[in-house]
Structures are given as C-alpha cells and as structure tokens.
C-alpha cells in the first residue's frame, strides 16, 4: 500500500532534482529553495527584518557529523563573507528527506565554537599535565610517519592502532590501515552495540537490522528510536509515518523514554529479563499457531537442527514445530510475568498484535537491553525470533538485513588484507566478539599482552566514555605502554588531555566523507563536503588542502591519512605509496578530490548516467546534490534466484541444499527445488539453530534463549539498598561527548539526575533533588535524585551524556559543558574526582558564553564502572548493581571515587567466564563472522606455538 505520506516523500527524493518548489507569489509556501537557485539564493536577513536586507547565499549540501545517521545538511554560505550562516536539511537526501533533529542545525555552534582548537598542539609537560605549545602539521606528520615506518620495517604491525568513535565514513580508514599492512582498527562497538550485533549476526549473517517502519502494521522497539539511536531522525520519521497510517507501537524499556511515552504499549520489565519476555511472546505465537508456517518452513534452518540435535526424531517440519513448542513451553506468559514483572495479559496482547501484523511486523533493538546485560545478545536473538515467526524478515513492513539497504562504494585501489592479527584488539578469549574488545585495551596493555608504538584516538574519548576511565588514564600516561598518542578531534576531550598531540579535525561542514546507512528499504550514498572549500573551488580559486579553507589550520582526516601514508613510504619500497598514487596522474600523490571522483565515476551504479543527464560530471553531481539514491523498494533479496551463469559449475549439497561454487563459496540454497540467494549464513538460511555456537564451546546457546543477567533483580538485596542501575540512556539533544561544543544543545539539556521511582524514594527517604551516593563494585558517585513515575521500582537510571570535566580553569573540555574538577590520585590506585566549580559563564567572542545559566553540569558515572565483557558477544555489560543511599556529610555533588586495583580484579573475574579460541580448525574466529578491516584468512588460524 502506497501511502499519501510516502508519495509526498517520494516526490522529495524522486529522480527529478526538484525539492518542493519555491514559487514566488504562490499560495503554498515551499520547504526549500528550488534546486536551480542553490548557487545564488537570495534571502532576507532575519536580524534586520522587517527591513528587507538581502543576503546572497550559495547552498552547498553536506552531511551531519554528529551521530552516525548521516542526515543531509544544506550549508548556507554567505557569498559576501564566505562564512557559513546556517545549516538546514538537504531535501535531496533519501534518508533524512530534508529534515533533521536538534543536532543538525546545532552544527553551526560547533563551527563557531570559541573553544575550538584551531592549530595542532604538542605536549610540552608530562602527559596529562596540560602544558601545550602550537606546532606545525609538518612536524606532526614527520613524527608519526617516522614512528609508523619504523614499526612497519620492524614488522611490528600490531603496534599501530587507530581507535575510532563514530566513524562517519564507510571504509576510508580501512583502506589506509590495510595499505600500511597493520591490524590496527579499533572501534567503540563493544561499548555500544556488540550485544545486538551478535544476536542479529547469528540469525542472518548481517549484524544490523533494517526495519521498514513506514510500511509496518506493528512496531516493537527495545531501543528509543524516537529520540536517539541508529538512526534517530530517519527512523523517527518513518516510525511516525507508520503510526499515522495505523501501525501500533510497543516499546520495551524499564525507563519511560520519550519513545515509550508515545507508544500504544509501554512494557517495563526488570532490566535483563527482556529475552524471557520476548520468548513468552514466541511461545504464544507457537502455541496458538499464529506464526507464518510457510516462511519458517522455507527459511529457517530447522532441518539442520533436527539432524544435529534431534537425530532420534524424523526430520520433518511438523516434528520440528512440535519440538520447538516443547522447548519454549517453559516460557509461558505467566512465567514471564513473574520473571519480568509485566502482566501476562499484556504479553499475550502484544503477541497477538505481532500475529495480526504478520509480515508487516517491524522491530528493532540496538543498544538498551542488549548492551546492558550479561547475555544481552540473546535479547536481540529472541526479538529476531519473533520476526522470523511472523515471517517479516525481508518483507515490506518487516525487517531486512542491513546489508540490503546500505551501499558501500569501492575505492580505486583496495590493498590486500593484512597478514597480522592484533591480539590486543582481538584477544583469544573473545572469538565471537562483535567486534574489537576496545574497552579492555588498557587492561590488556597492563597485562603485558602488547604495546603500542603509535596510537590515534579519533573523535573518541575513552577516558570519559568507556567504563573504568581512571584505568585508561593510568595507561594513557604510561609512555612505556603507548609511545606516541595523537588525538584527532575538533575539540578538547578528557582523553585528548592525555595525548602527546592534539590534532584539530573538521566538523560536519569541514571535511569529506562518503556515507550510507540502512534507514529504510532502499540504498543511498551521501557526500560530506568542506563547504567553504567547495565554494572557493567553484569560484575558480585553487585549494590544495581543505585546511586552507577551514578555520585556522583545521585539517580533514582524509587528507591527513594521504599525507601521512606518503611520508611513511616516500619511495614506495614498503608497498604503501602505490595505494596513494592518483588513478588519474600516474605516480603522483592522489588528491582527495580524485579519490571521490574515481568512486563516483566507477563504483556507484547509475550515478554517472544520472549526472550525464544533467550535464554534470559525477563528482560535480555529488558536489551539488550531496546524495544519490542507488536503489529503492528493496525487499525479499533472499528470494532472488541465483543466476544460471553462477550455477554453472557449482554443486548442490544433497542434505543442506547449499549451492557451492567452483571456488568453494556458498552462493545460494535450494528452496523447494529453486536455487535462491538466501542469507549470509553458513546454511544460507535464517539460523534458528546455531551450529557455530556449538562448535565454539557454547552448546547451551545453540538456540535463542534467556540468560539471567548479571544484575538479575532477584539478587538485589533491598535491605542493603541494592538497586539495578540503568546507566545507558541517551537524550534526544546530545551526542555522547561530541556535543560539548554545541551551546544550543547544552542549553536544553545539561544535567543527568538519578531517576528513581517514588516508592523507592520514599523508602530511602529521598526528596526530589536530594544528593545520593551510588556505590558500584569499584567506587561511588554522588548525584541528585529525580523522583519520577517513569522508572520501574527497584531500578534507578542515569543518562550517560552529562558530567564532562576539565582540570584546568581556562583550557580543556568545552566550558559550555564541563565542570572544573580536581583529580586526586591517592596511593594504590585510588582516585578521587571532585568539582571545584560547576559549569560557569566565561568571556569569549561569543556573548552567549557569558549567559550560561546552568551550573552543575552532571555527574560522570562511567568512571565508577568496572569492565564487564560479555563472554560471548564481548559487549561491555553496562548495567550495574549499585547501593543507593543518602549522601554522606563529606560528599559533594559530582564526587567520584574509584579504586582501580579493584577494577583489575573485576576484569579478571569476567575474563574467567570466557571460553577462548581456538575453535574448530584452530581458528581465532568463525570465518563466516564479519570482522572490521578483515585480515587474510591465513591469520585466522592460530599458529602452533
């Protein structure tokens, strides 16, 4: 069913480059200036109004760099001053369709932030002492090139590490690292989404879902996608579209998120019991025969399950159904009601909603329960189970594997995979992790498992964001563990403070990146651009590097990596240089323009034709439109017939139906006698049964199941004031530690009080605003209480967005956001952080900085969390068992106390739960599992030692 809304939106992203037209004198107002006028758009100055003062702008599309959704922006560049006046949405962007969340327009704050770093800085005192001097980019590049070159020459290819927060690009750095031949990609995934990723990957091979919200009839969210998350704005648009067309919405969250608040059903289970809740719904669907039999029969690997696990039974679908009914019979709604604290009748009602929606049942979990709990990955797996039962995988209104809806273009040269495995990023204990065990890095370095010659933190702030920040500080200070550390960041962060070099990089409108995300049932790419540079070049000025057009000497990373790579291997002897030579000018260094030009000319199907139709070169087309829709209405890709050409020479495995090519790749599966593409799993089907789990020593997890979390409510001793702390929720206006430079966002949200149910508040004797001391296993923090009916009794919650700090009065983390603190290192790994002064107005070029009215700035809770690596997914299990009590007389707001010796013990306790590699065939990791910057298959095998 094509809905009116869709039609309207399709028009906005149709083949014609026609954002809703501005017709002078017309009755209907337009949303955007007409595309043909983007080069020279005249608008009246808002400040001078009602005097009509004309301002002439060039409108240059770019992409937001605040979260990972890659929404389109349109920069209004004043033609007279060359300054960016504002950023609106890009109507030609298929994902965001001209609309943005609060963070999009706030990009202008980040550009004009008086606190931003404009020149490369070099440490002159001890690490963390806060003494800096301005240096030159040449010095920076030479220093790092020498260090890395030496590591390459000495074949220390696991000592160069690039540690990234939100990447904001697709694959650029992967190519660079593989060109260097290092195994050095470290991400933030394991403090973010590993749990959900493993759950999804086990089912479908792809580690993310792509829900088709707009066409769904029932939507179930375990994340708060109407306010945060991947991908907030594009997904919120489509969830509400679906809702307006009649879809009902259920949200499962212990906390009343804004999303839960507009839902038809808010289910608020005890944290960590979500999988039980979902399996009870599965039980209802199975028992009442409300599942899609045909879909399950065709696409679930039930035969594999029956053959391997129930050899005594006939290998028939009916026997399978009888069997799984038995397996899940313990998950009755009554059991779930008792276990989760959600009424049985609600569970049944929601299950019936799922059944009614059938293939138009969309669901999503990204962080939340999957990231909070031991065994959280099973929550995603149980959720996906419901979609499989409903037959909504790949269907319109259902959920598809993300890879169907994301387009990653291939660059001009792809280096061979590295032949090295970095065990400080991929330790053997976590062979199934999704992905790098990044938050364990300081512990692994302390264990002596490795050593870093060159370490880049790139828009990443582990000291603040990761658990156990004081352990990070201990390691970042230690030059014997990390020889050289550069923080690539637009602004100060708590981590940058401990680096050797702080290298200012561009924000949203000051850099190139190519991005795609699975926002709906289609594929698109979007092009981030340094808009001032684009305009200079359009005016005929020659610009060699983006920093020439950026404020100060703010670089863009793409160019930094080209320059650095060139200097690592100036002669080409190391095999690096060739990957940075222009595809257009043999032997010469590539320019960033050439890099993207080649992609647009060669790697994006349909783009050159589309550009030609407008008399534009592909690069110019992208420069002017900022986005390109590669495909739309992508559904049922698993049902794609394997072309005869591929089938030729391939063989079909009798039992499994797998179609195996001559080169020994599975390319499809026979379904009812038809060769179909299927999914990217070993069985090419949806893997209800995971043989992989069995092979990798987790036989108890071969099926979707429920694991009791490390914070199970039954283990909380109420008499000892024990509570479950949910410390992971986000606010619609902030972006982890990336938004401290956006005054309009901090103006709206600047505190993170501890949510507490009125019943608990009464029992503990708290009034709203009282100070509480919250004690974790390694320390405590002191925070204000927010009494609200929006949280389950027995559970407290605190947003992790606030509590930024700096140790120097006039320098460090943005003063819009940070409190001045004193950090005291008491002996034996005991650390104490205390606010000296909260957020305070300050003098700057921006008069608004004197108008800061917020004072406390929040509490940094993550410091008090020990690492909790889930033994299977590798996810840091964020939820905490805490003791909540009234603050002691000596406590002050914002106090944090931590014992890092204790955090080492907790690390070891959790490490013991792991079941290390090797798996079958001496493997470090299942070959079919995705791995970022995937190394050569040969290093997947652990060499005999």
């Amino acid at each position, binding site marked *: 069913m094509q809905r009116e809304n869709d039609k309207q939106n399709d028009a906005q992203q149709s083949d014609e480059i026609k954002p809703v037209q501005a017709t002078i004198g017309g009755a209907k107002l337009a*949303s955007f200036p007409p595309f043909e006028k983007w080069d020279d758009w005249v608008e009246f100055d*808002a400040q001078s109004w009602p005097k009509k003062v004309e301002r002439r702008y060039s409108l240059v599309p770019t992409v937001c760099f605040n979260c990972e959704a890659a929404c389109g922006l349109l920069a209004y560049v004043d033609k007279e001053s060359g300054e960016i006046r504002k950023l609106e949405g890009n109507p030609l962007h298929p994902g965001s369709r001209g609309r943005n969340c609060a963070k999009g327009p706030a990009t202008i704050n980040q550009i004009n932030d008086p606190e931003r770093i404009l020149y490369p800085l070099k440490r002159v005192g001890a690490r963390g002492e806060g003494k800096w001097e301005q240096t030159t980019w040449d010095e920076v590049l030479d220093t790092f090139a020498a260090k890395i070159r030496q590591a390459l020459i000495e074949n220390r290819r696991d000592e160069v590490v690039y540690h990234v927060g939100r990447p904001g690009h697709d694959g650029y750095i992967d190519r660079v690292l593989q060109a260097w031949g290092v195994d050095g990609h470290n991400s933030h995934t394991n403090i973010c989404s590993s749990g959900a990723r493993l759950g999804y990957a086990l089912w479908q091979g792809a580690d993310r879902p792509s829900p088709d919200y707009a066409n769904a009839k029932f939507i179930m969210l375990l994340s708060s996608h109407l306010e945060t998350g991947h991908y907030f704005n594009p997904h919120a648009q489509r969830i509400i579209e679906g809702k307006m067309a009649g879809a009902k919405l259920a949200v499962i969250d212990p906390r009343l998120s804004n999303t839960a608040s507009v839902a038809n059903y808010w289910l608020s289970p005890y944290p960590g019991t979500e999988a039980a809740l979902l399996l009870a719904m599965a039980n209802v669907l199975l028992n009442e025969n409300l599942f899609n039999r045909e879909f399950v029969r065709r696409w679930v690997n039930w035969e594999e399950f029956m053959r391997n696990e129930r050899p005594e039974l006939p290998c028939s679908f009916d026997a399978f159904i009888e069997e799984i009914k038995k397996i899940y019979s313990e998950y009755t709604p009554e059991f779930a009601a008792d276990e989760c604290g959600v009424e049985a009748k609600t569970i049944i009602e929601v299950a019936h909603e799922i059944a009614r929606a059938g293939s138009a049942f969309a669901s999503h979990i990204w962080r939340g329960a999957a990231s909070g709990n031991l065994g959280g990955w099973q929550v995603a797996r149980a959720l996906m189970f419901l979609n499989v039962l409903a037959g909504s995988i790949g269907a319109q209104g259902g959920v598809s594997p993300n890879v169907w809806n994301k387009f990653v273009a291939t660059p001009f040269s792809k280096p061979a995979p590295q032949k090295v495995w970095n065990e400080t990023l991929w330790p053997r204990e976590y062979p199934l992790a999704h992905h790098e065990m990044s938050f364990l890095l300081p512990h692994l370095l302390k264990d002596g498992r490795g050593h870093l010659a060159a370490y880049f933190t790139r828009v990443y702030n582990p000291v603040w964001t990761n658990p156990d920040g004081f352990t990070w500080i201990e390691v970042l200070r230690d030059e014997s563990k990390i020889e050289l550390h550069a923080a690539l960041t637009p602004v100060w962060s708590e981590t940058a403070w401990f680096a050797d070099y702080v290298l200012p990089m561009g924000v949203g409108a000051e850099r190139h990146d190519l991005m795609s995300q699975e926002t709906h049932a289609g594929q698109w790419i979007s092009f981030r651009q340094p808009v001032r540079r684009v305009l200079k070049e359009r005016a005929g000025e020659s610009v060699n590097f983006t920093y020439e057009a950026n404020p100060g000497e703010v670089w863009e990373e793409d160019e930094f990596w080209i320059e650095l790579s060139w200097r690592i291997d100036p002669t080409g002897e190391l095999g690096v240089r060739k990957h940075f030579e222009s595809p257009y000018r043999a032997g010469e260094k590539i320019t960033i323009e050439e890099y993207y030009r080649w992609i647009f000319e060669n790697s994006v199907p349909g783009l050159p034709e589309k550009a030609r139709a407008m008399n534009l070169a592909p690069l110019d087309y992208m420069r002017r439109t900022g986005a390109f829709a590669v495909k739309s209405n992508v559904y049922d890709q698993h049902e794609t017939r394997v072309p005869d050409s591929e089938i030729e020479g391939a063989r079909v495995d009798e039992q499994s139906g797998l179609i195996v090519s001559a080169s020994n790749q599975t390319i499809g599966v026979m379904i009812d006698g038809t060769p179909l593409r299927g999914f990217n799993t070993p069985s090419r089907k949806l893997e209800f049964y995971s043989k992989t789990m069995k092979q990798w020593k987790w036989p108890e997890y071969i099926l979707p199941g429920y694991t009791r979390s490390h914070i199970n409510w039954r283990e909380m001793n109420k008499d000892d004031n024990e509570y479950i702390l949910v410390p992971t929720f986000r606010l619609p206006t902030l972006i982890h530690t990336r938004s401290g430079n956006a005054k*309009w966002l901090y103006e709206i949200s600047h505190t993170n009080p501890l949510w507490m149910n009125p019943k608990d508040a009464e029992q503990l004797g708290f009034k709203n605003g009282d100070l509480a001391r919250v004690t974790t296993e390694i320390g405590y923090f002191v925070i204000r209480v927010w009494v609200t009916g929006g949280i389950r009794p027995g559970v407290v919650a605190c947003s992790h967005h606030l509590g930024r700090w700096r140790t120097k009065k006039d320098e460090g983390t943005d003063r819009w956001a940070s409190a001045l603190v004193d950090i005291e290192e008491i002996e034996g790994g005991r650390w104490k952080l205390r606010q000296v002064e909260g957020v305070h107005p300050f003098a700057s070029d921006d008069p608004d900085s004197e108008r800061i009215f*917020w004072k*406390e700035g929040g509490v940094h809770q993550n410091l008090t969390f020990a690492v909790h690596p889930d033994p299977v997914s590798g996810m840091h299990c964020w939820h905490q068992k805490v003791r909540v009590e009234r603050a002691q007389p000596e406590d002050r707001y914002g106090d944090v106390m931590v014992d890092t010796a204790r955090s080492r013990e907790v690390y070891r306790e959790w490490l013991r739960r792991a079941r290390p590699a090797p798996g079958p065939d001496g493997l470090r990791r299942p070959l079919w599992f995705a791995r970022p910057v995937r190394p050569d298959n040969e290093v997947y095998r652990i060499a005999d030692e």
Partner: protein
Amino acid sequence: MRYGFVIDHRKCIGCHACTVACKSENEVPLGTFRTWVKYIEKGEYPNTRRYFSVMRCNHCDDAPCITICPVTALFRRDNGIVDFDGDRCIGCKSCMQACPYDALYINPNTNTAEKCNYCAHRVEANLEPACVIVCPVQAIVSGDLDDPASKIARLIATEETLVRKPEAGTLPKLHYIEADQSALTPTEQTHASGYLWSEIQMDSVMMNEQALAEADAQARTTYDISHARPWGWKVSAYLWTKSIAAGSFLIAAIAMLGGFVFNHWVFDAAAPQIALFFLAATVALLVFDLKRPERFLRILLMPQWKSWLVIGGYILLIYGALLTAWVIIPYAFTRPLSRRAVEVPVMWAGALFAAMSAIYSAFLFRQARGRVFWHSLLLPLHLLVQAILAGAAVLLIVLVAESLISGSFLTGPAWQFLYYELMGALVANGVLMAGELFMPEENVERKRAARLITRGVFSRLFWGGALILGTIVPLLAFASGAAEEATVAIIAAVLALAGLLVWEHIWIQAGQAVPLS
C-alpha cells in the same frame, strides 16, 4: 490570507529540533527562546506518560501585544503574521505582560522585545518557517487558515483541535491536535526542583507553593524554560511616585475648591511643586525601566494610540504642563483678577488630569491580558484612593515639618483637612486591598496571586508591612488622636506611605507570579 500553525501532537516526539532550528534561523541568544517544547509527566507507574507541547507565539487574531505596544513595534502583517520591529521597540516589556502565552522575551543583544514572527523574512521569500522544515515527523504545519484547500485548514476542519487559554479572548491561530489539556494549561502543572535533564532557574516567587496551589498534582512539569518576571521595583516605585504626584495636587485642588483652606501655602504652593517633583520622578522611573531608555520620546512621537502607555504618557505630559502652568502663574500674572481667571481653569484641569494620572494605569494593567490579577474592577477606584492617601500623607508631612521648624501650632483647616483625608484614605485603601484579595474568586490565576499575598511569599510583607504597619498603625494613630503630636503624625504618615509602597511591590510581583506558560 491568515497564516497559522497546527501542531500535531499525534506526531510530535519532543525532540527539540524546532527549538534549535529556530535559534539558528533567528540567532536567538542563549537563555531566550522563540519556541520551545515543554514536557509534563502524568500518571503513576506503570501508567506514567510524558506529554510534549510546543510553545510559541500564537499569532493571535486579537493580539494583546499589538494593542499594548506603545510604538507599533509589534504589528500584524497583511498575511496575519504578528511581527515585530526591533528598530522601533523601546523595551518597555509591556508586551511580555500583555501576552498570555509567554511568547516574548528581551533580546539581550539589542535590549528589544522579540518573539516568533513565523519567520516572516522566509515567508517573504516563499519559504516555510525554519521549525516547520526541520521537524523530523512533520508535526508542525504552517499555512493559510483562510484557504479551505490548504493542509492546515483541512486539518482544523477534520481534527479536534485545542488552543491555549481560549478564555483570554485572543483568538489564537496556533491549533493543537491531541495535545494534552493540562500540558496547555500552566495552572494545572506542578514544578519540582530540577527537571528531567535541566536545571530549573529557581524563582522563589513563581515556585512558591501558593503560586502553584491547586495544580493537578499529577501533571508535573519535567522540562520547561524559565521566564523572569519582567517588571521589578521601578514599576512599583513608579506607581507610588505617581500616586504622590497625582494625589498631592488632587488633594490640594479639593481643598482649594472646597474654599475653606484656599490660599494655604501647603495647597497652592507646596502641593503643585511636590506633584511636579514626583511627576518627574515618575517619568524618570518609567524611562529608566525601559530597556532602551534613549528611545523614550518615541512614546510621544511614534504613538500607537490604543496603548495606554501612550495615552498615559500624554496624560502625564499634560498634567505636567498644567502643574508647570500653576507654578508659573503667580509670576506671569501679577494682577489678582487676571491671575484668578487663569488659575481656576488650570486648577480644574489639573485636578482632572491628576485623577486621570492616578487612574489610567488601571487601563494599562487591564491591557496586560496575561496578568489576570491586575484586572480587578476595583483597580481604578483603588488607584484613586492610593493617590489621595499618598497625597494627603505627603502634604501632611510637609505641613507638620514646617510647623516643627517654625514652632507654630498645628491646628487650622489645612491640618484638619489632611488629617481626616488621610484617615479616610487609609480606611478606604484597607477596604480596597481586602477587596482585591478576599473577594470570592473563581479565576485560578487571581486566586493564586491573592494567596501568594495572603499566605505565600508575600504574606509577611502584606500582613506586617502593608496592613499592620502601613494601614492599621497609622490609622490607630490618627483615630486615637495620638497623631496630634507632630512627630507621631510624621511617623504615621511615613508609615502610610511606606505601606503603600510595599503594597505596590507585592501587587506588581504577585501579579507576575503565576506562570503564563
């Protein structure tokens, strides 16, 4: 053509994108907002819900901000947009009192009033407002209400819609679909210390439990922006000095017209000079309360005649001219007959304008449509009584002080007249204060403001200051005859004046203490 907004709360997800897009489009300074998203929470776990409501200018068809603005800085465009012109604004803040929706603020960069103007500069280029295009869920709909084919008109025709405070009679052009009624009704909301993710800028007056009394305890505000009370001590002081300015001559005129004390220096010489002095002080307070005091002449030179600030300004101007005339007459007209011929009409006119000077503020405060407490029907009479009280007290002080210096005996008609005049005014003022505070009242805003005075943050000032020390004690002093002692008389009169000033302060502040949004 009538542009309006529909805000569709079936869609709104409370994301604040509109807030920030507006800030960007209009460069709105920190701490001020043209649009914001208020959150309230209702219900007990697990039936708790949060409700969002997008707040901004309603572009009223009967916009009180336009009516009260003395200089046409606020005006209606042909397309129905209520726009403003910062270049005209004098920063009197009266629009902030007139608007029942908290839509206006003073821009700290320009010190002029601003609000949502529907992005009129964009509309001129045929573009929708910035908040409309940014909204991820298209919950904000702009368009022509007069065009039945427009999306906005169709929505209003087919969906049930609400407006904020329909009882204010402003005819708002902002219509809400499925907004929660208590989210739109500030008097139904409670505030606790701190919000969901922001600090409350505590205003002990607005947060006083009496100011929030009888709110629906289930509708708790969990995100909001702060609104300072626009008028402070200068406005209370202005009322007080104006009472003296008006009252001293009015009393003198009554006395002179009564004839029995004509020619007493207190009335024909001291009173007009005192009136002139306090009139100058009144004007000075008015001017210095402006955020753009250098633009004060615009009230007279660029008048918007519906504004009682303008009418009042002219009344004060004419009154000042008449007082000046009175003072000059003895020098200009030396012959008694011709002097008398001029004096009598000037005195009549002066008395009339003195009374008008006292009373006109009642009409100004009534134009402050947002401040219901100030709309009392007793106010014109009360202002007149306050003027008489102030005038009598000041003249009595002068008379007694002179007698103390000269050692003359305090009797005679002037003394008697002022003595009883003041006593009467104190009684009347007491009755009128009680009337304003204790008359049975349905309106919750009036009730709350009154309770702030009788039971809330202002109760000590009221009971101890305005009532006991400022009214009852002087009244007893006069009634018992104790005030026939010169020092007692002076103390009693000073107390009466101080009591009046206290009353003006609490009356002005309590009137602004009930949240508008």
